[in-house]
């Protein structure tokens, strides 16, 4: 259970972990990290990212979902993900790693929920560390109205 009065961390053994500073959540809530993929999330990636051509982005088979219940974080979370074998192989063959996060991108006239590459803070042979901004969380993606962030690791040819 995440408490507003202390920092916290949740780990999914062999997959990754997410941590947050004090006051990230306005009230107590449960935070989950899941290795996850669905028809909707795959379609979301494939229809908003360039996947074809010499510089197309190739996503991992499974993504990650971070759920913060009914409370949206007010501060960025720190996320560490262990690289799945297919991504490790791609990196070893000279490709570059990217972290794609789904963001609500819209105005009063439109709604886009598209995947965007975010900055990598630290990359090792086994894992990647990055910052997950509160804007990545949306309650519109699941029927429970839980705030969730959707992440895919992907690789592409170095330019």
């Amino acid at each position, binding site marked *: 259970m995440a408490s507003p009065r202390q920092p916290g961390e949740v780990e999914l053994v062999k997959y990754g972990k997410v941590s947050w500073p004090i006051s990230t959540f306005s009230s107590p809530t449960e935070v989950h990290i899941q290795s996850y993929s669905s028809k909707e999330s795959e379609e979301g990636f494939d229809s908003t990212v360039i996947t074809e051509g010499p510089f197309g982005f190739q996503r991992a088979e499974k993504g990650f979902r971070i759920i913060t219940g009914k409370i949206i974080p007010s501060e960025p979370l720190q996320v560490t993900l262990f690289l799945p074998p297919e991504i490790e192989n791609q990196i070893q063959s000279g490709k570059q790693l990217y972290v794609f996060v789904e963001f609500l991108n819209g105005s009063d006239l439109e709604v*886009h929920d598209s995947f965007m590459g975010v900055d990598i803070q630290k990359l090792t042979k086994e894992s990647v560390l990055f910052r997950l901004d509160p804007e990545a969380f949306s309650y519109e993606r699941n029927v429970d109205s839980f705030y969730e962030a959707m992440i895919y690791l992907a690789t592409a040819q170095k330019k």
Partner: protein
Amino acid sequence: MKFFIEFYLLLISSSVLAMANEPNPNCLGKIIGYPLKNPLRILSAFNPHSHFGIDYESNGESIIAVEDGEITKIGWDLRSLANTNNRTGLEYQGWGRYLILRHHNGAESLYAHLEKESVEQLRTGMKVARGETLGKSDSTGAVTGPHLHFEFSPSGSVLLKRNKRDGNQCIERTGTVTLESLTPLHGGDFELSLDGRSLGNTGIGMKKQFPIAITPGRHEITVKLLKTVEGKRGGYSLELSEAFEVVDTQGATVSVGDNQHDLRVGDSKTILIDVFSNNR
């Protein structure tokens, strides 16, 4: 003969569009053309946290390439949402028919909500030139009405969040500055500069129109009296087209065309102009 040579050179200089030296630093020097054939009117501006592009008013007008480049994506995006979007009341989301271009200068641009069939002649890998028609605007995808959603990255992939910038600030606006030497018999030869760069001079007692293309924001226009017949004072008037708004050094607006001054030889007068970011 000398007169004719001088006149010829003046004609050449006035036919070339002059550009400002210091564009918006966010554009990283990548100055682009219009994404639409029609005048630009913003319906919803860029927001670095929630709206990573600009919504321009457009309903069926031609979408045009902002720079030379290559088509890297002809996409279709329309998906349902599990919950209704609060801002729009829409139960689905997506760019509809969209295009991504990679430009030769390293920038990328994205155009969304296009008419589905209007891009059927396009293929990925196809080369396009600045100003070339790509398709037509429409209301495909998750929208409440027709418009163009335009995204711009001056530095690489437009799909990377850190690259996305307010492309509207990088679109050059065109207009004219007309400088007239007021007293034909004893008038002066005036030089016009934009942001410190000379655009040319009028010649004694002459009127000249200077076409300019500059990005939105504040710019400096300077008039300098180079010489007069009598070596004393010379009067001039300055007129700007509607794309520009004149402000004085304190930032207050003054009326366009109300800029009659006289100068001593060697003296100069600088005015500030604001280039509208919302229309031509």
